[in-house]
């Protein structure tokens, strides 16, 4: 059982950036908070690593823990205001030449969309999860997720067309 915990580190190396990215998009681009949450999630995952069913994908499992941890974080910190906003983040990315105007617009609109739409879009296009993995993370049917993504993309397209 202990040996399996030693095997955890390669998983950490593989998914640390993905989980950090997942949190960064969901905590108003607050880097420090995203780092703390990433750390907490991996510690949680290590503690329950013995319960991990190896017949399933590690990615789905770790995203599920991250999602539940984020829900708990929201519950506990309702009154907290994010230290950074999407505007600060875009400014930072713009200074580093890592983002263009169109991309910035998309990011801003996604950030203002409803939580359900925002969540599936980010899981699909930022975190690169397939429909089945998203379904596992959000504990929904794969078909429902497919429809949800399709609707959210249509919504996003409409908003972008209307704004342009």
């Amino acid at each position, binding site marked *: 059982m202990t040996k399996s915990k030693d095997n955890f580190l390669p998983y950490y190396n593989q998914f640390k950036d993905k989980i950090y990215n997942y949190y960064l998009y969901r905590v108003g681009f607050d880097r420090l908070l995203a780092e703390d949450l990433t750390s907490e999630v991996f510690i949680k995952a290590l503690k329950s690593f013995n319960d991990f069913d190896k017949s399933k994908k590690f990615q789905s499992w770790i995203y599920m823990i991250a999602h539940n941890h984020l829900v708990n974080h929201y519950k506990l910190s309702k009154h907290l205001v994010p230290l950074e906003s999407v505007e600060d983040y875009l400014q930072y990315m713009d200074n580093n030449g890592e983002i263009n105007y169109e*991309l910035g617009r998309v990011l801003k609109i996604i950030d203002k969309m409803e939580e359900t739409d925002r969540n599936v879009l980010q899981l699909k296009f930022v975190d690169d999860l397939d429909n089945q993995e998203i379904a596992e993370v959000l504990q929904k049917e794969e078909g429902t997720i497919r429809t949800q993504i399709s609707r959210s993309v249509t919504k996003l397209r409409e908003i972008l067309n209307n704004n342009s």
Partner: protein
Amino acid sequence: MDNLDKLLGALPKNKLNKRADLKIKFKLYYLIFLSRLRTLFDFSTWRINSLNKGFVLAFCVVVVFSATSIFVYASDDILPGNQLYPLKIAVEKIEQVVALNPKAKIATYEKLSSRRLQEAVSLSQKINKNIKTDNETANLYIKNNILAEIKNHESAVNTINNLRESSSTAAVINSAKNNDQKEIEYLNRIASSSQNQDILQTVRNAKEIINHEDYKSNINKQFNNSDRVAKPTNTPERKNKAIPLIDYASSTIIHAKNIRKNYRNQGR
């Protein structure tokens, strides 16, 4: 927007910075280490692996025993009559056995003779201050310590006389002389604080042995490099002087044991 899929695919993907990465890794390594320790000390595993159990138990016993021994050995508060005193003596005996080199042996004898006298001084001070001490027993301990000091002193002198002459012999003899002076001081302190005639007599005997002319001439001969051949230790003269001393010591110890028995009987 026809290129929406492209834009969505190009959304920025950020990387965890190195400082945070190291911090998390450190936490994870620490937790893995703790889980390993927990497995080692897990009772359920012990049942399966009795080798682990034996190893950990033996390790704990060795650690506790060593720690106690070191504490007892280093402590000046462990005096004769204390329950841990036999352990202190046992550690000192090991120290004597481990000292293979004659010079190391001399140093050990000197250290032990000084220590016995220090203990005797502490005991006599306790008697004077009336700190929960049974005077009669404490006086016996003082006497025994002085006799033990004499024994160690004799052993040190014999080993010095057996030393081959070398450049470092002078230093050893000098150190012995300094130790003698220290011991005389301790004996004087005991004599000044004690009114027990038996102890005063023992102190006088001890001082006589330390100041003995034969002993001094032996040391001086080596110190002046006049005598190239090492002297045999137990010359007939030395043996004759040592025998009454040993008789005296053993009779005192027997006497001490009898007094302790009587004291216990009275207590009952």
